[in-house]
């Protein structure tokens, strides 16, 4: 005669226990202290019972996370399953365009260049760190040893065609305050473009700085790097 002890559910790993019994009673089971829930008898020589073995498991097995619950034997049987998924925190900037001023002459005045960009953030908001390519990461363009400074402004009006040349001034290498209106449902702003992009970066060069700049046969160039950090 054997008493087969099955474990319907527990928060720990368990093992089946086979206990020799006398005439189907509980006297021969070393774990009878915990095996109080004999519930079903299918065959004359075999019994199925249930035991809550949290204590036994704690002694013999390392604790582990196992939250799903198993069904028990009956007219119906119910198990439960937990589901978990984590959407990662991430951001992306795309649809960036180079900003080019073909030429400038005295009297042309201040210059404003911009590029609409698509900023995706899985949190919906982000911070920007812009870094110039001038000496000490300054916002400046250079032709040889000659340089022209510029300023950088960030507009985060969001998709919908509301982007403009006003916004928040950025300091090179300094992380901005928090900006909202990032794209959250499409990583590329549905292909980008003026009505789908979510932000604009504006580069401004003053008339004074351009006037003071030395003429050059080679263009003044520089690189502006934008680091987007989801917030």
């Amino acid at each position: 005669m054997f008493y087969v002890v099955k474990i319907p559910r527990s928060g720990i790993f368990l093992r089946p226990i086979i206990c020799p019994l006398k005439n189907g009673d509980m006297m021969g089971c070393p774990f009878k202290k915990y095996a109080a829930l004999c519930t079903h008898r299918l065959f004359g020589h075999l019994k199925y019972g249930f035991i809550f073995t949290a204590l036994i498991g704690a002694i013999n097995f390392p604790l582990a996370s196992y939250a799903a619950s198993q069904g028990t034997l009956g007219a119906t049987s119910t198990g439960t399953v937990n589901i978990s998924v984590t959407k990662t925190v991430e951001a992306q900037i795309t649809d960036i365009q180079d900003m080019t001023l073909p030429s400038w002459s005295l009297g042309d005045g201040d210059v404003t260049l911009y590029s609409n960009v698509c900023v995706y953030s899985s949190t919906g908001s982000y911070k920007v760190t812009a870094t110039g390519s001038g000496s000490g990461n300054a916002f400046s363009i250079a032709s040889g040893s000659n340089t022209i400074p510029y300023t950088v402004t960030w507009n985060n009006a969001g998709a919908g065609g509301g982007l403009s040349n006003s916004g928040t001034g950025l300091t090179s290498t300094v992380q901005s305050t928090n900006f909202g209106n990032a794209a959250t449902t499409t990583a590329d702003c549905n292909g980008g473009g003026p009505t789908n992009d979510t932000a604009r970066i504006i580069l401004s060069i003053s008339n004074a700085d351009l006037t003071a700049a030395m003429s050059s046969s080679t263009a003044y160039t520089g690189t502006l790097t934008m680091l987007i950090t989801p917030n």
Partner: protein
Amino acid sequence: MRRFLIIWALSWALAPNAYALGVVQISNVSDFNLGSWGIGDPPIAAHIDVCIYALLTLPLTDYTITVSSPGGYVLTNGMQQIPYSLYWEDSGAGSLGSSGGTQLTNGVALTGQMNANILSTSCALGTTGPNARLTLKISTTDMTNALAGTYNGTITLLLGGT
């Protein structure tokens, strides 16, 4: 055993729509821990293989499964939600994965499922091993639309006779 079968047969003959005598058990159930998902990742498709035991149901080896979640098939993170879909495949031990399964509807019983194990509540006898598969799917679109965070949900699998 003989007495048991006689009682079962008499009960079925007298009340053919009452199968309370049949006993069932679902086991080998585990959680869907889907990990992390980021932009560029493929759609989510995960499954758990479970053991369905059914004794004295009619027809033999047949059963009904109902998968329920109180708020619908959605994972939640505060007010944010991610919908998912579930599929049940009853191909039997050794054949799981041979079909995509039948799409489930929240709280609606899927009847006529077959290939339960009738010998062992742990599917350790006869054609051994898990005999049914529950598949969970989340589309790339739904994952992309979700804000960052951890989303959770719980489903209840109710197994019954036919």
